[in-house]
């Protein structure tokens, strides 16, 4: 089966006065139809940047400096603005973080839905309006037939995010990029919105790239997970393997910092130090200054993604040719 | 010597001076402003002729074009007006009046506005409500209209002989009073912020009186924005004075400002003597533009939260 989205060796750079910064470096992954790929990592690791590059809306001076992005086997990273515009919304939907600022305050939610559908679908205004009401019902807005004429400020935050979801999906894209869709919401609402996204994705057979720093959301929703660090993918694999048996020392540290629910712990594990700034990414493995298992090779050579069994991790511990091999703690069972 | 050089060194080393040096537009405006200031301030010593010395005026010299034109005369580099006055000297003396009125008016509105703003912000309550309501109402009207009106009322209220004596002060008063609300509003909002800070509370706890706290603790903290507004207002004040004088209700004809010169020259525009009005106009624009650019730079450099 052909992946719906394939990212190959993606490189994003920013030209600044102090030279060119590489925000994404060699990012590769693919998403199959109907699959949910979670993307996790600290702020600034390049999660949102990857999403923005895919929908072709990198903020200048950021630009794609290398690699390819393929949608259904067709390259989309080198399209002109107008060609890419026809793909946005129609073939790739996008959901943003803060529902309070994502909706235009001056138009009713119905108007915004109708406008989006009329842009992409061969339907008339009356049909579009009917579908707008339908969509509002589908995302769980009560009394949708009346609320379709309400303005965004008349909805609560959680309801607005449902509207945003409807807007992102109303032109029926096969692929959705959701950038921190629940971060700005109340904790009690987060689960509802995630459940909605998940069920819609399943129902419509939609693929999704779910960017978040919330491991709970990932564990709940994703089929596979990519862990990002300093603009690179550190580890990628099935959600169960990455969450329960991470192989990369960074993913291991990340997972260990999540408080377990089933037992009491005195101290949560934390990773010493901080992620390097883009202007000061170290030689070799970007994680090497913070890594508890670091050895000489990590400081000299940059690791590619290597098979570790269940997942693939960018770590020299998994190269049989390395002088040091992964310790028991990372081998799990 | 060292005592003078030390602060100078600090100034040359400061962020402010760095941002100044990095902006060529600002450096040029500062130079232009300096030339205007020196030329106007030292007019009696620098000007080639004394335009007010009636004995030296000769109608034969009237309407001479600038020196570089065919009928020009090297003694009058920018030509002469209808009475044979040297235009360059008249402009220098005129700029003196314009600057004087502008600076005094801004000082007046700054003092008035800062005082009212401090009072409103610190005292709060009814005083605050009343003062700010007045400021709101006045802000609804363009300041030039207020200045015109104040000037007109004073003109009507005073006998003509008295008015001629104090006309300059009337103009300063009229322009000054038309611009205070902007200062008052900014100072008030900064005062409201400062008032609740701990150092002011501490000052109150140790028993300092309210006026004392306002002057020694709150005032220094609101001076940055005030300086910026004052600079930006200087350009406006100069324009207001020129406008009033152009309309014939500003400074008295015996003390012509740039606006008066433009008004006089305007009568000869149709007959082709363009220089009598264009050169004073250019001087006015150079002055206002350089002051405005300096003000813009100062606002960005100090970056107070204006607007």
């Amino acid at each position, binding site marked *: 089966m052909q992946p719906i989205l394939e990212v190959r060796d993606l490189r994003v750079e920013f030209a600044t006065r102090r030279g060119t910064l590489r925000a994404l470096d060699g990012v590769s992954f693919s998403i199959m139809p109907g699959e949910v790929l979670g993307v996790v990592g600290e702020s600034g690791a390049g999660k949102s940047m990857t999403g923005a590059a895919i*929908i072709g*809306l990198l903020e200048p001076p950021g630009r794609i400096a290398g690699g390819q992005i393929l949608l259904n086997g067709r390259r989309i990273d080198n399209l002109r603005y107008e060609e890419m515009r026809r*793909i*946005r*919304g*129609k073939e790739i*939907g*996008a959901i*943003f973080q*803060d529902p309070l*600022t*994502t*909706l*235009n*305050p*001056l138009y*009713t939610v119905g108007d915004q839905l109708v*406008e*989006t559908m009329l*842009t*992409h679908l061969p339907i008339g205004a009356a049909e579009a309006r009917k579908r707008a009401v339908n969509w509002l019902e589908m995302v769980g807005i009560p009394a949708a037939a009346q*609320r379709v004429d*309400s*303005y965004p*400020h*008349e*909805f609560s935050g959680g*309801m607005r995010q449902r509207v945003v979801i409807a*807007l*992102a999906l109303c*032109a029926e894209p096969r692929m959705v990029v959701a950038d921190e869709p629940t971060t700005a919401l109340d904790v009690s609402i987060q689960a509802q919105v995630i459940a909605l996204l998940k069920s819609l994705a399943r129902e419509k057979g939609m693929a999704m790239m779910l960017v978040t720093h919330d491991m709970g959301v990932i564990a709940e929703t994703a089929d596979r997970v990519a862990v990002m660090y300093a603009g690179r993918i550190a580890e990628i694999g099935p959600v169960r393997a990455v969450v329960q048996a991470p192989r990369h020392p960074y993913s291991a540290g990340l997972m260990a910092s999540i408080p377990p629910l089933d037992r009491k712990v005195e101290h949560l594990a934390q990773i010493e130090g901080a992620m390097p700034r883009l202007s000061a990414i170290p030689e070799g493995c970007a994680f090497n200054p913070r890594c508890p298992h670091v050895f000489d090779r990590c400081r000299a050579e940059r690791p590619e993604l290597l098979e570790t069994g269940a997942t693939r991790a960018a770590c020299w511990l998994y190269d049989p040719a390395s002088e040091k091999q992964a310790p028991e703690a990372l081998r799990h069972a | 010597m060292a005592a003078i050089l030390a602060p100078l060194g600090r100034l040359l080393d400061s962020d402010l001076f760095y941002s100044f040096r990095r902006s060529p537009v600002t450096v040029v405006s500062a130079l232009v402003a300096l030339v205007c200031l020196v030329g106007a301030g030292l007019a009696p010593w620098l000007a080639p002729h004394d335009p007010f010395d009636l004995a030296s005026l000769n109608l034969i010299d009237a309407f001479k074009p600038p020196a570089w034109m065919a009928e020009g005369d090297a003694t009058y580099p920018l030509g002469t007006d209808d009475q044979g006055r040297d235009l360059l000297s008249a402009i220098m003396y005129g700029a003196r009046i314009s600057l004087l009125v502008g600076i005094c008016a801004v000082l007046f509105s700054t003092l008035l506005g800062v005082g009212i703003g401090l009072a409103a912000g610190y005292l709060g309550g009814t005083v605050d409500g009343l003062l700010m309501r007045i400021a709101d*109402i006045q802000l*609804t*009207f*363009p300041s*030039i*209209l207020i200045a*015109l*009106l104040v000037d*007109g009322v004073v*003109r*009507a209220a005073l006998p003509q002989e008295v008015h001629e004596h104090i006309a300059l002060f009337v103009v300063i008063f009229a322009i000054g009073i038309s611009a205070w609300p902007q200062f008052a509003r900014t100072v008030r909002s900064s005062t409201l912020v400062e008032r609740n800070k701990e150092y002011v509370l501490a000052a109150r706890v140790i028993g300092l009186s309210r006026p004392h706290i306002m002057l020694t603790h709150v005032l220094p903290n609101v001076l940055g924005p005030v300086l910026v507004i004052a600079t930006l207002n200087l*350009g406006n004040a100069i*324009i207001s004075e*020129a406008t009033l004088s*152009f*309309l*014939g209700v500003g400074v008295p004809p015996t003390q012509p400002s740039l606006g008066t010169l433009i008004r006089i020259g*305007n009568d000869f*525009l*149709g007959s*082709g003597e*363009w220089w009598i009005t*264009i050169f004073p106009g250019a001087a*006015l*624009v150079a002055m*206002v*533009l350089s002051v*405005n*650019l300096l003000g813009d730079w100062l606002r960005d450099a100090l970056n107070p939260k204006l607007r």
Partner: protein
Amino acid sequence: MAAFILSRILQAIPVMLVVAFISFAMFTYVGDPVAIMLGQDFTEAQRAALVSSLGLDQPFFVQFARFIGQAVQGEFGLSYRLSRPVAELIAERAPATLELAFCAAGIALVVGVAMGVYTGLYRNSWLSRALLTFSLVGVSLPPFLIGILLILIFSVWLGWLPSFGRGEVVQLGWWSTGFLTWSGLKALVLPSITLGLFQLTLIMRLVRAEMLEVLRTDYIKFARARGLSNRAVHFGHALKNTLVPVITIAGLQLGGIIAFAIVTETVFQWPGMGLLFIQSVSVADIPVMAAYLLLIALVFVSINLAVDLLYYAVDPRLRVGRGRGH
């Protein structure tokens, strides 16, 4: 809606009262209207008769109430200078000023918004930079100098357009219009540009700043992410949001046009209310000044009301009471 308008009108009343009070105070206490009206020779009896006929012997509040009553009927007495009813003078001059202000406001709004949108969308193009520089000069040039420069270039040197007056006007009832004759239209060009240019540059800078602000917002990014056309994003979404703050300030600026008409009318000897006012100021013709002040206040209050209503129409967040809960 009705309640909204009503509350705005109620808010405007104190402003009008304050202005009326200032006018009244000028009328009553500045100069000596009795002496001016009587002229050189008069007896004490004549004087007393005039004082009581003007109601000047009445208590303060009675006088003020009478002043307001007369002002509402457009009754401001005789001009000291021209000895004609002030209301008649103003009615005669109003069409000239209003037509000029209308043209200037039109130029300022249409060109200002267009240039602001352009410089906001294409902020790095050379045309945008040129327009911005031009606007900075525009803000620093006093309006009367712009008028003088335009006259010098287009009247004196090129001889294309008249430098003063309204040209031929056509009388439509009491309204005299310059819109219907070629010379009237030609006469409007230079004064309208002079009067509009300052507001134009302000509106342009304002629209540009707001446009840049709005283009950075999430809802514009989201509109792009939904694949809406550039046209829809720029004009449907960005411009409409830009208009909310622009309406307020532009409204106040347009009020300024009526006031700045004083200067423009002086430069171009335009026979409007502004010229009447400035002639009155220089000879302290208080009744005309008082009436003009009240009229200007009325114009400003009306513009503010119109701005509030427009605001209400554009921004749904203001329409309280429509919300159907969360």
